[in-house]
Each structure stands twice: as C-alpha cells, then as structure tokens.
C-alpha cells in the first residue's frame, strides 16, 4: 500500500500544485474581504476542487502503460482500488482543513459573516457531499466505460453530484440527508469498483 500511496500522491501533486496556487490567491482575498458569497464559493471550490484533482490520478495512469504495469507489481487489485478511495478521502480532508484555516482566519479578523454558524457548516457539508458523490460515481464509471473518457466522465460525475446536493440540501433535514446519502454512495461505490476492476483486462 505504501507504494500505491506514493504513486497516488505524486500523480495528484503534479496537477494540484496549480490549483493550490489559485486557491491560495483566492484564500488571501477571502481573508482580506469579508464577503459571505465569496466564502461560500471558496469553501465549495476548495473541497470539491481538491477531490476533482485527486480523481485525475486514474487519467494520468492510463496516459502511459502504468495502469497495466501496476497489475504486475506485488499489490492486489483490491488494494489498488482501496488506495484510490483513500486518496479521495485524504484530499477531501486536506480541502476541509485548508478552507477551515482560511475561514477561521477571516472570522478572526472580521467576525462571522454568516447569519448563523449552521450557515458555514452547511456549506462545508455541501462541499464534502459533492466531493464524495462525485468520487462515488466517477471511479466505478471510469473503470467500466474506459479510461480514455476521463474528462467527460469527470464533468458528468461532478454535475450529477452538484445536482444531487442541490436537490437534497433544501429538503427538511437536508444537510443530514445529503451527508448520509453521499457517505452511503461513497461506501457502496467501493465494492462495485472492486468487482468491476477484478474483471478488467489490460
């Protein structure tokens, strides 16, 4: 698993550097200017953006024979899939920490711009749920439909995740339902991907 984590981290790091620079600039703006709308977008983009970057690991593997090569390394197929899901969780957590620090700094300087604390946590829930749902859809679909369509499926998965979040969030107890659904989807997606990947031939 150590090799898989190193591999995933290197693959994500190649893409994420530019995104982090952008988020850093956006973060500075959010700290300086206390604006609720800016903060909302910053939270959602920060968390979901890192999850999207993490998901591109799969694409980068199939631009060379590395995806096939990994199968002859001393790792099980289930561990390859597990490492992808853990990689998603890792970067979503990193996103939550990153936006958390920026929002905390902004609140320290200017106070809480949201009308109530639930406002901030609600936006964080949306960011996490979009990320989990997007990952839950994208990973099995990409193994099922082919790695050459990564970008298309990434966009479709992200749009589906945003749609699901928008539908569920405004229901009574929406944040709880949304969180529950996205977590369940993410968990259910793992064995599905494993079963798809076990039959995959390269």
């Amino acid at each position, binding site marked *: 698993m*150590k*090799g*898989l*984590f*190193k*591999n995933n981290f*290197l*693959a994500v790091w*190649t893409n994420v550097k530019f995104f982090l620079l952008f988020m850093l600039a956006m973060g500075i703006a959010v700290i300086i200017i206390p604006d609720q709308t800016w903060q909302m977008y910053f939270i959602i983009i920060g968390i979901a953006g890192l999850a999207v970057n993490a998901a591109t690991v799969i694409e*980068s*593997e199939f*631009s*060379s*024979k*590395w995806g*096939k*090569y990994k*199968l*002859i*390394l*001393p*790792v*099980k*197929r*289930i561990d390859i899939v597990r490492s992808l899901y853990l990689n998603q969780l890792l970067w979503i957590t990193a996103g939550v920490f990153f936006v958390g620090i920026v929002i905390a700094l902004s609140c320290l300087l200017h106070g809480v711009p949201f009308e109530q604390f639930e406002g901030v946590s609600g936006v964080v829930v949306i960011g996490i749920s979009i990320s989990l749902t997007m990952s839950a859809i994208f990973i099995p679909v990409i193994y099922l439909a082919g790695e050459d369509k990564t970008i298309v499926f990434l966009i479709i998965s992200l749009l589906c995740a945003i749609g699901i979040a928008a539908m569920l969030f405004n229901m009574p107890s929406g944040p709880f339902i949304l969180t529950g659904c996205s977590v369940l989807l993410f968990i259910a997606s793992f064995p599905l991907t494993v079963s798809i990947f*076990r*039959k995959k*031939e*390269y």
Partner: protein
Amino acid sequence: MENILELQQVSKRFPGSDFALENVTFSLPYGSILGFVGENGAGKTTTIGCILNTITKDSGTVKLFGKEMTDADTDMREKIGVVYDGDNFPVYWTAAQLAKVMAGFYKQWDNILFQKFLKEYKLPANQKIKQYSRGMTMKLAIAVALSHHPQLLILDEATGGLDPVVRDGMLDTFLDFVQEEDHSVLLSSHITGDLEKVADYITFIHNGKLIMTVSKNDLVYNYAVMRCRENQFPALDPADIITYRKRDFQIDVLVSDYKTMQRKYKDIVTDRASVDEIFLLLVRGEHV
C-alpha cells in the same frame, strides 16, 4: 530440467473479435532465455497477459515457479520483472521519483543497484521521463525491472524500435541476468536477429496458435532450406518437408535435418537458414 514458467493449453477469446489464443503450450526452463516470436497481432502480448494475469484466460493453466499465480500471490510477483514496449511509467515523473515509488512496492527494492543502472545507462535521475529518448525509457524500464532482484524477466517487445547499439547493450544485460542459474528470461520480439543472439529456445506463434518450440541450436544446426527447382520438388519425400514456398522458378523447402537432407538430395542446394527465414517459411509457407 525444472521450469520457471509452464503454459498448458492456454486459450483466450475476445468478444467481438476474430482473434483467439488457442491451446498455447510451452515452458521456460530455469537458467535460460526463451524467444517468443510472432508477427504483430499473433498473440504474444495476449499470452504474456495470460501469464501475468492482466488478462483472464478462458482455459488452460499457467504455472510460475511451479504454481498458478492468483491476484493474492503478491510474493510471487516480487520475483518477476516486466518490461512493456513504450511508456511503462508516468512520463511526468523523474527516475528519482520512480525509485521512491518502487521502493514502496517491492520489499527487495535495491536502490544502490538502481542508481548503478542509471549511471551505467547514462539516465539523468532528475530529468522528467517525457524528456527521455525512446532508448532511454526502455533502459529505465529494464533498470526498474532488474532492481528488485527478480528471478524471471518478461519482456514484451522491449527491444522493438531501438537502434542496434542500444539493442545490443540490452541483450548483453539479459545474458548477464541468466548467468544465475535460477534466472530466466521470456523475450517476446519480432526482431529475430536479437533472438538468434541470446535465446536458448524459440517459440513461434502465428494467428493465436503455437507453431512450434525448438532449441536455438537445433534451429541453427539442423534446420535448413532446400532450394529446389520446380521439377525437383515432386521427387521430395513429403515426410521431409515441414513447409514450402514457391518463389518465381524456385521452391524453398524447410527441412529439419540439414545433414541427412544434404546426403539424401545431393543435387539440391541446401542452405542453413536464419531464424527470420525459418519464421517466414513457417508462417507463409504451405504444408504438403
């Protein structure tokens, strides 16, 4: 002699494709190099996929180190080094980053040996792989495949598209590798000249079917091509003919016993044949 690799009646069909691998059977003894020859699309990569479990075979058995390898046999994969044709690794990595990743996969990863290979092959450790030439990427793949001390090296068209100097260096590396008696190499290639230099055995495959497996010495010393005129051909004993091919006013006949044929057919010119010529006659020749 014990075998490091054994294939018995391995078959594989692909839905929606006419191609099928049919009952492929061969073995690779310890301490030897087996050349796996076939034209593009003959089934070499499919066979290697079945050996390495990247493709699920429909039937037959593949034994590595005496047992069938499953997905759970990670220890067995520690003992196998593989080189595919083309980009084996993400091109945005450097060799130094690749070494760190590989150290996380292989218990026996030998970074000192890897650095030695980088130096020997003149591969810059901190240059991105995408800036390497094709020869350099293949050398890197071989360095990686050898740096975890494998016993079995599997090379799928690893020497294709390389210039003769680089190819020659690689072949020397394979010969060094099999100096250890528990080491073996499966070298898939359509460059038969390479195999003539290093292989102990040669297996010919065509259209998914195995034509034959034969020792290189047998090919070099016993196989021959008789250059018959059209009027001489009917007089040949059909039992002597493996395949034949008409060429203008001459018929080339592949035979497997050079000395006997020379004695038996004194008025027919009989030449020793190259692996290339034997392969062409096997694939494109007709049977009696």
